[in-house]
């Protein structure tokens, strides 16, 4: 058996372990938080459920079973690929997630793209020779990276919707409605990425290969674009796995503020209602994406860095 196959199998086992651990932790965490899903199922705030109705709901959804029984029932369901039905919305979780997925994927991918473009631009600009831009860029990066999303969103709405009237304050289902949510998610992420890339760009520029390229007559811009950027991109690529987590947690905030349909809002509502199957479904999906992303960033790192390809060969 080749080492590549062994490595893939190992990875697969690791991925399954991660998914199991995530499901287990989520399941027990949501049950540790005090709450009564039966009440939430029967209408939540302002409704006045009768005892009979509550008992019935608890029996229907198995909420009267011991926690461990509920846990193994859940595992059994998951193993067969069944995510179960939402308590509150009375529809299959897979269908619910399927309906909300597109909104979040579009938002997250656009934000990731914009963040990368901003980060690369900022990193290149700040490392250009003969400029005072470095200190400025450092300040900008730090500020961007530490901006709370809800604050940024509020300011963007106040400026671009309320004051200038250029962009809608809430999602309209049109491309213009995407601009502010994407910027809100992208800016702090770009701050992180740019910080990391600038640091590595500077390190790369001090390497002997940069000097020899310069000696061959390569321009300063050429060195940064054709040689150093590759080095600087590596940590950024590796960070993209983490970025998935950031983007999903960001989606909770952004989708709520901009009233966009999506997984973030679905998750928030499910947690509030203790809608366990939906919470598990969304969290497992995020974990799966995370696992897949680490595969992908790993492969991308190999493309960007030939040394990794060398090491992999037996």
């Amino acid at each position, binding site marked *: 058996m080749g080492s590549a196959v062994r490595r893939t199998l190992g990875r697969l086992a690791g991925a399954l372990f991660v998914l199991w651990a995530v499901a287990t932790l989520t399941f027990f965490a949501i049950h540790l938080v005090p709450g009564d899903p039966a009440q939430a199922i029967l209408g939540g705030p302002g409704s006045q459920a009768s005892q009979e109705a509550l008992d019935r709901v608890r029996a229907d959804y198995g909420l009267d079973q011991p926690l461990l029984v509920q846990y193994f029932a859940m595992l059994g369901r998951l193993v067969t690929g069944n995510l179960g039905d939402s308590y509150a919305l009375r529809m299959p979780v897979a269908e619910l997630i399927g*309906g909300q997925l597109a909104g979040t994927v579009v938002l997250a991918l656009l934000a990731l793209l914009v963040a990368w473009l901003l980060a690369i631009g900022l990193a290149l600009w700040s490392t250009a020779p003969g400029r005072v831009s470095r200190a400025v860029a450092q300040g900008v990066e730090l500020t961007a990276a530490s901006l709370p999303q809800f604050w940024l969103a509020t300011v963007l709405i106040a400026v671009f919707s309320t004051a200038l009237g250029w962009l809608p304050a*809430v999602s309209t289902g049109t491309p213009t409605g995407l601009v502010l949510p994407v910027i809100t998610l992208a800016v702090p992420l770009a701050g992180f990425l740019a910080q990391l890339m600038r640091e590595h760009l500077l390190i790369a520029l001090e390497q002997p290969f940069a000097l020899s390229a310069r000696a061959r007559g390569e321009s300063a811009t050429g060195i940064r674009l054709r040689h150093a950027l590759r080095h600087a991109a590596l940590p950024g690529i590796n960070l993209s796995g983490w970025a998935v987590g950031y983007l999903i947690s960001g989606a909770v905030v952004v989708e709520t503020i901009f009233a966009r349909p999506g997984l973030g*809002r679905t998750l928030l509502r499910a947690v509030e209602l203790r809608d366990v199957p939906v919470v598990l479904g969304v969290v497992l999906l995020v974990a799966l994406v995370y696992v897949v992303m680490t595969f992908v960033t790993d492969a991308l790192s190999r493309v960007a860095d030939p040394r990794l390809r060398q090491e992999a060969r037996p």
Partner: protein
Amino acid sequence: MRSASAPVRTNRRLLTLLAAASGATLLLAGCTAAAPEAASTPTAGGTLVYASGDAEPDCLDPHVGGNYPQALVAGQFLESLVSLDEDGAIIPWLATTWTASDDGLTWDFTLRDDVTFTDGTPLNAEAVKVNVEHLKNPDTQSSTGYLALGKVESVEVVDDTTARFHLSTPDSALLESLAQPWVAIESPAGIARGMDENCLAPIGTGPFVVEEWVQQDHLTLARNDDYTSAPADAAHDGAPYLEGIEWRFIPDSASRYAALQSGEVDVIDNAQPDTIAQATKNGSLVEIDAPRPGASNRIELNSSRAPFDDVRVREAFIRAADVNDGIDSLFFGTATRSYSVLSSVEPLGYSDEKLFTTDLDAANSLLDDAGWTTRDSDGYRTKDGKRLTLRFPVSTNQSIPAEQSLFEQIQATAKEAGFEVVISPLDISGWYGALFSDSYELVSAPYTKIGPDVLRTLYDSAGITPAPSGYFANLAQLNDPELDELLRSAASTSDTEERASLYEQAQKIILGGFYALPLYDQQNHFLLSTSVKGARAMPTVSTPTFADAWLSE
């Protein structure tokens, strides 16, 4: 419209913040009083965009569960047998007349004979019977509607237009119950489709029809061109002027307000005190202030055990808590202090301001009398080595930020008397969890219902179920046989004067026993663009109706 202007209050002791607050109040009163005039003639057409800050319903059929978010939207496409006018009197809607037998056990409702549901099914006595059975069927999982029909045993079809309700005991609240949107009448053919399908688009007789529901985004409501069944107090008969309504869900209050300001939406609900003050200042927006019926917003004091099993401690807390200054500074004149456990829109509400005057000295001597004489190093009172601690779970879904701040001010003022108030902000499920495990001494739980019978739900000892599993609405855990007797008699008497007197006596017991600290009416503010004309809040449970609305411009 329930009330168009906020009263300007004077005579409060606060000095610094009052200036700002009352300035806002004056502006507010000036703007709202002049605003919603139906001056021009209605023009047909256009789509109104409504943005709701309430939770998106899980099911659009208000028979299922039964909460306020469902009532908000269902009012656009479902209608009830009767309605209320602005004075709280019952008026005809789908039923034109009704008579009760002398023993109060049989009620005959005569229905309109010219109404059909939007699927073509005729409205008749059989349809009413099907609806009542649907509400009483445990499979429907009805909570609010089920309670409203608690005394209705069955409905008999006398003829096509006469539905006879058979009651187990006389019910003086029957008409008020039937006016609620949670017992609205739906097409029997729609109900027969089963819960899943009916939840997505219930079929009614209302001015609009559910066309599409994109979950977590919007509902599209289309005009019912054949609409004929407006309630008796409507401004016009026949199809609505609007082509339709786009009903959106925007949970964040700042975004909701921004969308209204920029013209993306025409109407928002759950407007916050600061935005109301700001909006009415520039005159480009109109406010509808429609407090909800039923109970006022109040803090219940759990009287089932120490420390609040002692009336002196309850009174001490109420005397120590400075509510008025908090309301003045935090609500910008949009909320009026209440001294009643019933909403100000309830004609039978009883107020007693002098029971709730703030008096720190009185609070301190009451606590001394009650044996809470020592103080620990943090300044809190103790008795037998135990600190005077009050747990206060707060629902962040139900208490707006201004209210949460008010609770913090109450916490601070109660501390001066030696109370330790521990506020726990919780999401909705956690909050229910805290209530049902009986781990609270203070709690604020809104309750919307038409009529004073809400007192029986909230303060009858039958509403105390032993923890930990049971639901109970008597959160003060008030257990007084005399009160029970008054509330039960009031619920079954057919004599209106006797009913009023019984409810007054009952409220005197509740207020005088210091079981609850009333704050203000359940706040319910809508902001409208000035181009929206003819919109109003229903006098039933204060949900908006757009049957008479049109867009000028």
